[in-house]
């Protein structure tokens, strides 16, 4: 079985970046000092991934203010004001607000422009079409909005990322398993994902559900046109997944919301059990959610565990 590992989503900022960004807002430090602190964090995260032996490299989305903001800022007709709780966390995002005709002002968000230092193979994290359309503030029909946001933003950006050499695109999709999805919404969602599939030919496309139980949605999820579906095993009972996953499975086995760092052995044992039960063509070992909700030093230790566990699984499941 093909086993890979990578760390998706927003990675936490160091205490140095925390102090620098806080200082900038209060007029106590300079933009240059902030940039230097971010650069050091980025180098640190790249080093952490390399030392852990991860298979894909992310920039950690360190400068992103939330998962939507770079897309809001690169798109005419979108704005972001109201603070909304990020699911059941003490963390908030500014809800994208539809203010006019959607139109990209650049091929990728500014935060993704300067990626020359990122080693390959590179991976990027983007919001899933369903998440983006439901988190947005709009009076428009949500499925129409999902189609518009996919066509005008997610598809062209994804296409450009692949053209820039990104080998894996990871779509965050907590909304589906946290709030659920009406049966009449599935077709539109599948079409939106299908559009992104077309746009990312040659790259691996992953849809990652988290912060909720994927069990009730497992049958529909496994039929989506993606290379792997991500499951949060803190919230999902593996018994509910069924067997015979013909596609890939991202097993979220490290808890991105708890500070205790998991020992390697049980993580390996659990992932092996998932592989045996579900029988996916490819097993991706990762955290159940982005690590942003942890202090940086704890997140770094979890990435190390991830690498160690994946290395063991590669040997055992080869």
């Amino acid at each position: 079985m093909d086993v890979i590992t990578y760390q998706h989503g927003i990675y936490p900022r160091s205490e140095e970046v925390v102090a620098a960004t806080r200082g900038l807002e209060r007029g106590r430090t300079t933009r240059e000092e902030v940039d230097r602190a971010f650069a050091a964090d980025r180098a640190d995260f790249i080093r952490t991934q390399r030392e852990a032996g991860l298979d894909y490299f992310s920039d950690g989305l360190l400068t992103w203010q939330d998962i939507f903001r770079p897309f809001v800022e690169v798109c005419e007709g979108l704005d972001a004001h109201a603070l909304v709780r990020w699911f059941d966390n003490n963390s908030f995002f500014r809800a994208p607000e539809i203010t006019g005709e959607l139109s990209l002002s650049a091929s990728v968000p500014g935060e993704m422009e300067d990626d020359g230092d990122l080693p390959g193979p590179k991976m990027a994290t983007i919001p899933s079409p369903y998440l983006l359309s439901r988190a947005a503030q709009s009076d428009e029909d949500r499925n129409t909005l999902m189609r518009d946001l996919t066509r005008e933003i997610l598809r062209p950006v994804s296409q450009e990322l692949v053209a820039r050499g990104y080998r894996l695109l990871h779509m965050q999709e907590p909304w589906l398993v946290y709030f659920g999805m009406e049966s009449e919404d599935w077709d539109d969602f599948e079409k939106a994902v299908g559009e992104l599939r077309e746009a990312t030919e040659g790259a691996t496309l992953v849809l990652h559900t988290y912060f909720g139980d994927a069990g009730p949605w497992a049958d529909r999820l496994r039929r989506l046109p993606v290379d792997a579906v991500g499951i949060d095993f803190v919230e999902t009972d593996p018994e509910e997944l069924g067997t015979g996953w013909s596609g890939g499975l991202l097993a979220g086995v490290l808890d991105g919301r708890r500070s205790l760092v998991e020992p390697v052995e049980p993580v390996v044992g659990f992932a092996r059990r998932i592989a045996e039960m579900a029988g996916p063509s490819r097993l991706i070992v990762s955290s159940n959610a982005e690590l942003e909700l942890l202090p940086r030093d704890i997140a770094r230790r979890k990435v190390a565990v991830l690498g160690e566990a994946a290395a063991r699984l590669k040997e055992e499941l080869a």
Partner: protein
Amino acid sequence: MTSPRPTPSDLTSTPLLTHEVGSLDKLGWRVKAVAGKDLEERDVDEARAWGGRAGVDGFEELIDLLRRAPLRSKEDKDQVKRWSSRYGLRMEESAGLDVVYDGEQQRTEMYQWAVAHSNGFEWRGSVRAFDNKYYSKAAVVGPISLKEPYHDEEFAFLKSVARAELKVPITGAYTIADWSFDERSNGGQDLTKPHATRTAARKDARHEFVLDVARNMIRPNVEALIALGAKWIQIDEPGGSTEPDELDLFAQSFNESVDGLDAVFSTHLCFSDYDLFFPGIEAMTACRQFAVGFANYDSRDLGISDAARPGYQVIRKFRDLSYRPSLGLGVLDIHTDFIEPPELVRDRILYAVDVFGDPGRIQITPDCGLRTRSWDVAHRKLVNMVEGTRLAKARLGLS
């Protein structure tokens, strides 16, 4: 002949009473002086300017103290903190608020202060709340107890200098637990255990943690404040609705913190889907007021129709609570420098009064603490809040 001072329960039912909710920013002179750093001339100028603008008696004494920076002694730094408290208090009084506190000038931060004065926690590092706003997050690692009641000194001082009525804000049990990691139990994290066992272990651990904070951290603090003469205590619960399936636990933690104690208790909720609080908070019968942030979700258009006030639609649910608490109506969006015109404040109030049908159940507040705004913006917002309240009173024929 002067009228008798209102009792605390009068205060929570006084029509359109204006009050503060939480913290204010700490000015540069306060931060640097307490950190033992040098001050710049602009810091001293700011202390002088706000001393005059807020009407702080004797602020030249502070200026003399700041001139000696960098300050080394604990006594000097404590003096600076008390001056900062005076400034916060007078800033709010000068804006015209009826009920004030000091913008939590002596505390580090609402969560950090509480945890730092309690046993059973260890710090783990900074976690982002949003944008470039972060908080220091601790883990509970052992039994919880107070090192000392951690608002006594502050309250005793403020009581001695306040001109307006005081309401003491204190961080609630649910929020403290929710903003902490729990490292006392890893039963919920061990994936080798059956899913149902893990889920049950997580739930039990959470229940135990929240109620441990309520009983052994919040309640002893509240008791100490009451012994010092506190009459109105606001339990701040910005994390109250974080876990929608724990609203019963949230309500239980409030009750465990205050039941049977002799004071008026209110709570503050913000930045949540308030629908989630129902029916959970129906059990919080000791809560005389919910101070809730709504302006963040509202339009800036004038008007008192449902369409003009989308952020306030949920207030009907608070109106219908059987124990008839008053509503601290958040009318200032604390996440923007937009200065709400008095007419907008007025219309938000008039809308709420119309929905409640009783101005005695509506009081006026910012959405939350104004800590993320400059003092200039915060003061201008508060002044307009008071003026908007005056306009609403005039429209309603209230004195």
